[in-house]
């Protein structure tokens, strides 16, 4: 379990996140939604130990602030919004970097082929020998996810759940790969791990999240199950946009929902 209590983050004296309480349980996908600039990424950076914060964050009962980088790396892996690479690595070399510090949790002999297995999971079979810089943005994003998966391949290690922190994991992906990636996240949770994902697509969020945390101007505006949180009032208040939940378009306008996926 990841427990954050009264977490605040200030960058250069400016408060970005204020007094956020947050929980992510093993076996669940916890989504963070909210408008641009509401502090979602900053909060995730506090959770991942990248930014200093006030308040308390505990990872499986251990205080984050006393955890060393290598200890945290065995318990959670982080997918940033975008990653630029400075040297011409092949796709396989990038994915293998996921094994650099943490523990994948597979048997020692199986580690060698883990990059290939991770690439297959994100639908990039046969990409191992390509250069990372030559790939499209969406493909790069999936390579990074494969790297992250290598780091915490087993969702449970030594009896403790492990976590995926995903910052907009599907933002640059087509609909097929959005579903593939979200299914990976849900599968990771079903096998005993925990997932924290920042998402923008509310339909995808409603479909996959067990719990939604809504952020607004650095604060937590609401938290709970999708059916309890996603209401007309909340969406109008948080996103400043008059939208109705569950209303079908009138007339001949087609619409495609991820929920219809077979």
């Amino acid at each position: 379990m990841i427990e954050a209590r009264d977490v605040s983050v200030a960058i250069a004296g400016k408060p970005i996140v204020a007094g956020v309480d947050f929980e992510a349980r093993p076996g669940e996908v916890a989504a963070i939604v909210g408008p641009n600039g509401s502090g979602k990424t900053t909060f995730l950076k506090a959770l991942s130990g990248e930014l200093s914060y006030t308040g308390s964050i505990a990872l499986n009962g251990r205080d984050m602030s006393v955890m060393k980088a290598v200890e945290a790396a065995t318990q959670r892996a982080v997918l940033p919004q975008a990653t630029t690479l400075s040297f011409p690595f092949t796709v396989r070399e990038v994915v293998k970097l996921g094994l650099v510090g943490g523990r994948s949790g597979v048997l020692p002999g199986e580690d060698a082929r883990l990059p290939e297995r991770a690439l297959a999971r994100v639908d990039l079979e046969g990409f191992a020998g390509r250069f990372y810089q030559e790939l499209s943005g969406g493909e790069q994003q999936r390579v990074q996810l494969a790297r992250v998966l290598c780091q915490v391949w087993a969702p449970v290690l030594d009896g403790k759940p492990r976590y995926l922190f995903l910052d907009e994991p599907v933002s640059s992906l087509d609909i097929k790969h959005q579903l593939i990636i979200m299914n990976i996240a849900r599968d990771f949770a079903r096998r005993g791990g925990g997932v924290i994902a920042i998402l923008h697509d509310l339909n995808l969020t409603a479909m996959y999240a067990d719990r939604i945390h809504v952020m607004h101007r650095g604060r937590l505006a609401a938290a709970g199950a999708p059916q309890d949180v996603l209401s007309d009032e909340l969406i109008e208040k948080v996103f400043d946009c008059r939208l109705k939940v569950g209303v079908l378009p009138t007339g001949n306008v087609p619409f495609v929902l991820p929920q219809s996926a077979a």
Partner: protein
Amino acid sequence: MADQSIAGVAGGMATAVEGDRSARARLVILLLCLALGVSIFLSLTSGASDASAVGVIGDWLFGSVPGDAALNARDQLIVWDIRMPRVLLGVLIGAALAVSGAVMQGLFRNPLADPGLIGVSAGSSLGAVAVIVLGATVLAPVTALLGTLALPLAAFVGGLATTLVLCQVATRRGQTSVATMLLAGIALAALAMALTGILIFMADDRQLRDLTFWQLGSLAGATWQKIGSVGPVIGLALAAMPFLARGLNALALGEATAGHLGIPVQRLKYTAIVGVSAAVGASVAVSGGIGFVGIVVPHLLRLLIGPDNRYLLPASALLGASLLLLADAVARTIVAPAELPIGIVTAIAGAPFFLWILLRKRGIVDL
């Protein structure tokens, strides 16, 4: 596309798993070991005198042939006391400069970082010149205390100070701006050179002549004593570098991601900075400003075996050592019986190469 054909040839020789260049890298390292062996042998056998290294080594192994004692003694002197220290110094400094370049490039996440280009060597020079000029007067207590270590230590401190300032200026929130790094490097180098200029202004005629030759960079005047004073420093720094390899690999993804992967980023950065400053400082202290080795060698190797520092660092050491011996051979023979400073040779070969990298990678480097 020269690099693609090079990579293609090497790839055809050894490819195990798709996208995995480690088998090729190991093969290249093996070949580089052989190349270094050949370079050392050629350097020991060639020179102004006709002394035969083969004969001397043969004597050393199998006992000298009677009746030839006088000639043998002369050859032994030339090979062991003149050529050998010079070869060893070339190996040490070539390896130190190339590995330092590779480590700085990993640290700044940029293929253009080089101790010579971004002011680290200039900072080291300032430290060394201070000891040469002021060693008998203002800094007398220091030189008395440290003896022959004063020069490399001063060069180390100068290089370390420059690198630390550079890191502070060029890195903001884990991101290094290339333009800021190069410009800050230019400013720091200019400042260090200006201060060096003041010291040179104060120098007497004898010191001046020493300084000029030293600044151009040369392996001439290599002695066992010099090896003794810088060898341990460079050896220690080089020995520490392989432990940085995995961390530097992770750093290619950015400081934050490297941290997420379990790398203690701050410790990695400071170990790398101290190691590079020590290696560059020691090199500058004995051989002056030998430029471009640190940028040319790692760049060539990345084309061949990829950017994985576990292979790039040892390969850089081997190729750097071989190339510097080659450059020294050119320096010794091209205007024989006089000798060209080796820094001129590396600059003439390296500067156009650097321009070529800039032209080729204009898009990626993105100044």
